[in-house]
């Protein structure tokens, strides 16, 4: 049981799912289920990276605003210079990876906890998002990109959806599943996964055993920034325009998804399935409350209760089955 971090989250997901099925008639349809999956995927994709990073013993508080930065870089670069959106998307990817690298490099180089380093990046990005957008466009929202070349082909990758019977399936849901599978494979079946667990569980032991700690951790920060870029692209190509102040607060949702999914806050323990279930729990409760027709003002309170419950269930399971 100590080897199954997701067991608590799975039980909770089951209970909450049945609960909403019982109280919310509108929840009982396939359409609703896929809307929940979509909501989960927009959090879940970045949570895959953040969760892996947490297993590797680090935090990233800048991931939420980096999603917005990614979209802003792409849209403003292309709008201002009148170039194809593909160039902007590539530039945005480079930008995100640079931010991820900087986060990782600073953490490893200075030894300052990643919580503080990425809190700094968070504020820098938040301010720069607004400041640069204002400078470039004169407003605090990015310009509409739907008329620029490349919009449709990029939209196909990042924000397409298709109909299956009455159900709209968003591409992000499939991407999310793919990323979860890859992450699960990396964590359980590759050398990199072994290293991630080791640097998060006991970095000094890992270093002594010959694990390249710096490279592993920087790699994790890069993974987070890649996934943040991915969701940033989705947001841009689905909504055409972005508010420069967006994304703030989501960094905690990623962390909550990982923790609810059984990832140990101190690192070294967790898995991809758990993190995915954590994100699904978030999507299910945030929308379930609406489907039930309750006042969504309560959602945050619910989220907090869920977080505490998940953490306590995990603690309990770990004690009982030790």
């Amino acid at each position, binding site marked *: 049981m100590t080897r199954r971090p997701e067991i608590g989250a799975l039980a909770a997901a089951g209970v909450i799912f049945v609960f909403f099925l019982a109280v*919310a008639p*509108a*929840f009982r*349809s396939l*359409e*609703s289920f896929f*809307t*929940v999956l*979509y*909501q989960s995927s*927009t959090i879940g994709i970045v949570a895959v990276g953040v969760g892996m990073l947490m297993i590797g013993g680090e935090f990233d508080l800048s991931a939420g605003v980096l999603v917005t930065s990614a979209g802003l870089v792409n849209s403003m670069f292309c709008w201002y210079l009148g170039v194809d959106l593909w160039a902007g998307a590539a530039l945005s990817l480079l930008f995100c990876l640079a931010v991820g690298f900087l986060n990782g490099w600073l953490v490893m180089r200075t030894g300052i906890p990643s919580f503080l380093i990425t809190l700094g990046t968070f*504020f820098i990005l*938040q*301010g720069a*998002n*607004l*400041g640069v957008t*204002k400078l470039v466009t*004169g*407003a*605090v*929202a990015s*310009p*509409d990109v739907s008329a620029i070349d490349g919009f449709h082909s990029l939209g196909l990758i990042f924000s397409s959806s298709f109909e299956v019977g009455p159900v709209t399936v968003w591409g992000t849901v499939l991407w999310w599943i793919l990323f979860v599978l890859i992450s699960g494979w990396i964590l359980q079946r590759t050398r990199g996964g072994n290293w991630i667990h080791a640097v998060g569980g006991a970095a000094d032991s890992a270093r002594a055993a010959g694990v390249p700690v710096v490279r592993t951790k920087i790699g994790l920060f890069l993974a987070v920034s890649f996934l943040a870029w991915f969701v940033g692209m*989705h*947001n841009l190509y*689905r*909504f*055409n*325009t*972005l*508010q*420069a*102040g*967006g*994304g*703030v*607060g*989501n960094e905690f949702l990623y962390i909550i998804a990982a923790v609810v999914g059984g990832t140990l806050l101190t690192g070294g323990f967790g898995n991809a399935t758990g993190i995915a279930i954590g994100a699904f729990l978030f*999507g299910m409760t*945030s*929308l379930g409350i*609406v*489907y*039930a*027709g309750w*006042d*969504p*003002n309560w*959602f945050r309170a619910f989220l907090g209760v869920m977080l505490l419950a998940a953490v306590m269930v995990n603690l309990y399971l770990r004690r009982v089955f030790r």
Partner: protein
Amino acid sequence: MRRRVLAAGVATLLLISACSEGGRAEPQQATGYTIAFVTHETPGDTFWNIVRSGAQQAAEDVDVQVRFSNDPDATRQAVLIQQAVDAKVQGIATTLVTPDALAGSVRAATAAGIPVVGLNAGIERYRDLGALMYFGSDETVAGTSVGERIAASGAKHPLCVIHQAGSVALEARCAGVKSAVPGTENLQVNGADDAAVTSTLQAKLAQDRTIDYVVTLGAPIALDAIQAGSTAKIATFDLNKETADRIKDGKIEFAIDQQPYAQGYMAVTSLYLYLKNGNDLGGGKAVLTGPSFVDKSNIDTILPYVEKNTR
């Protein structure tokens, strides 16, 4: 925070340059007024950007210096007003969204003989606090006129989307809508995340298929509502470039504009007139800058202004 630091830096630079130019600072101080412009803006809202543009234009037109500062947190906004008093500015324009929290600072300003003008929020309380004039719309009145208009087009069960938790002004708008259409229901969404807004709306519209109108309280939220893809019609408070385009192509029925540009512009010029000439606008009553309706019939005249970021 960053903005405030920046603003302080810019203000310092201006002061330094003012000193170095003539060699003497005093004549500069005597010819141009300095006005502090304090709001509860959350950085990154398109709406406030337009308010600022108005204030900036006014500052140029009447040759005063405007110092902007903002903080969504009520206690910190109070400190900003106090700072303006300490800096001995000639006039203060401020939003009064949380009158009780700001009362102390505003009274300190009036006690120091600095005229205060309210804008955007606080229509019921501005006079109690000692503010001279008020420029803004009455949120409840605006809500009611939206409610009346959608009721006329047959709405029975509209959804009023609140994108910021615990905002008095937004709640008042929805209350206004409800006073005209009793079937109105409120929905809370996370305004900082477009995808979350869309899927929450989708969920709500699936849960209750009798919803026939979606009223959003901010322009970006209206765009998310379009993405939610339902048969319900959409109306929104406030304008921006994209919503204006959507009104033009019929995706949004109408927007109700409280003319934020005029709020910023009038707040600054009224202070100027008061300082220069002792004028008092509004005849002891609040000056309403809205509601003004923008729909297909007048969008073509308004669109150029929207593109210039002044509406």
